[in-house]
C-alpha cells in the first residue's frame, strides 16, 4: 500500500483546498492515475479529475505530483515509494473542483496565434512538396498535446496572466516554420507583442516540464531572434523595400 495525499476543493463548501489521504495498493504497473481510479472506484466516488486515453497522448490528466507538473497517466506510483504521493491540481490555473483546473484562458489565447496553415497563392492539385528535412524544422513543435504542464511550470505565466504562454507561442512557431505556410507576418502582431514572446524571460522550466519534448522555451527564444531581426530590418529599411 502507498499513501496518496490528494488535494480536494469543493466550491461552495470549502473556502480553500484541503488535503485528503487515501491508502491505495502499490503495484508495479500502476500509474498515479491508476491510484486515483482506485480511489474513485473503491474508496471515494466524489473525487473529480480528468483523464481519458491513459497513454500520454490526449493531454487531459495533467496534475502536480509531488510538486512537479506531470501527466498522471505516465507517472508511476513506484517512483514515489514508499510515499506519500502528493497529488495537487496543476498550478497557475483556477481550480474548478478537486484536481480539475480551468484552462479556458489557454483556449481563448490559442486561436490568437492563428495555429492553422496560411498559404498565399495556389494550393496544388496534389500534395505540397515537403522534404523530411523541411519537416524536421517544425516537427518537434507539432508534438504539443495541450496538456498545460508548461503553463503550470512557468513563473511568468503565474505572475502575468496576460502572457500568451509557452504552448501557444510554440504552436504559432510550428506553423511559422512549416515550409507550406506564409502566415508568419500575420502572426507577428500577436507573437511579438509585449504579452507574447517578449514577456518570456527564459526561465526554461516549460521545456523541463514538457512530456512530449516540444521545447517551447527554445521555440520562444528562436522566435525572439527572428522577430528582433525582422524588426531591425523594418527599422532600417525604407517601407518600400519591405515585403
Amino acid at each position: 500500500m502507498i499513501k496518496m495525499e490528494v488535494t480536494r476543493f469543493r466550491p461552495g463548501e470549502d473556502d480553500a483546498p484541503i488535503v485528503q489521504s487515501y491508502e491505495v495498493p502499490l503495484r508495479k504497473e500502476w500509474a498515479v492515475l491508476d491510484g486515483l481510479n482506485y480511489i474513485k472506484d473503491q474508496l471515494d466516488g466524489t473525487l473529480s479529475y480528468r483523464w481519458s486515453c491513459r497513454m500520454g497522448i490526449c493531454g487531459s490528466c495533467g496534475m502536480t505530483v509531488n510538486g512537479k507538473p506531470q501527466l498522471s497517466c505516465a507517472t508511476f506510483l513506484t517512483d514515489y515509494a514508499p510515499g506519500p504521493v502528493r497529488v495537487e491540481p496543476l498550478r497557475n490555473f483556477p481550480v474548478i473542483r478537486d484536481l480539475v483546473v480551468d484552462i479556458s484562458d489557454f483556449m481563448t489565447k490559442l486561436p490568437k496565434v492563428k495555429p492553422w496553415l496560411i498559404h498565399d497563392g495556389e494550393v496544388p492539385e496534389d500534395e505540397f512538396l515537403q522534404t523530411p528535412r523541411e519537416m524536421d524544422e517544425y516537427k518537434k513543435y507539432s508534438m504539443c498535446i495541450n496538456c498545460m504542464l508548461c503553463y503550470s511550470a512557468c513563473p511568468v505565466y503565474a505572475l502575468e496572466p496576460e502572457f500568451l504562454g509557452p504552448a501557444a507561442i510554440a504552436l504559432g512557431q510550428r506553423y511559422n516554420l512549416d515550409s507550406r505556410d506564409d502566415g508568419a507576418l500575420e502572426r507577428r502582431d500577436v507573437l511579438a507583442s509585449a504579452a507574447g514572446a517578449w514577456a518570456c524571460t527564459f526561465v526554461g522550466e516549460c521545456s523541463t516540464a514538457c512530456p512530449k519534448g516540444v521545447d517551447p522555451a527554445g521555440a520562444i527564444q528562436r522566435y525572439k531572434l527572428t522577430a528582433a531581426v525582422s524588426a531591425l530590418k523594418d527599422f532600417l529599411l525604407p517601407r518600400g523595400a519591405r515585403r
Partner: protein
Amino acid sequence: MSAYRQPVSAFWWLRQWSYLLFVLRELSSVFVAWFVVYLLLLVAAVGDGARAYEDFLAWSGHGWVLVLNLVATAFVLLHAVTWFALAPRAIVVPRVPPWAVLVAHYAAWALLSAGVAWVVLR
C-alpha cells in the same frame, strides 16, 4: 463559477531549486553593471596618470572590493555559462547540430579571453 485562484507567493522562487537558479541568473546582471562601473573607474584612473592608477590598484586590494569582485566573478561566470547554454536554442543554423553551436560559443569565449589577456599582459 466560483473557481479557486491559487495564490502566488512573492517568494515563489524559493519553492524550487531551478527557480532559484533562474533568479540568481537574472541577478547576475547587477554584477555585470557593477563591472562596468569598475571598468570605468579603472579607465578614468589610467587616464588621470600613474598616481591615480596606483591609487586605483591599492583601492582594488581593499577587502570589501575584493569580496565584491569575487562574488561578481561567480555571478558573471554563471551568466556566461547559462548564456552559452541558451544560445543553441535561439540560434538554429540549418544542418548544424545544436552541440556544434554550443562548442562554437565556448571556443569563441576561450579565444577572446586569451586574446584579451594577451593584450593586457603583453
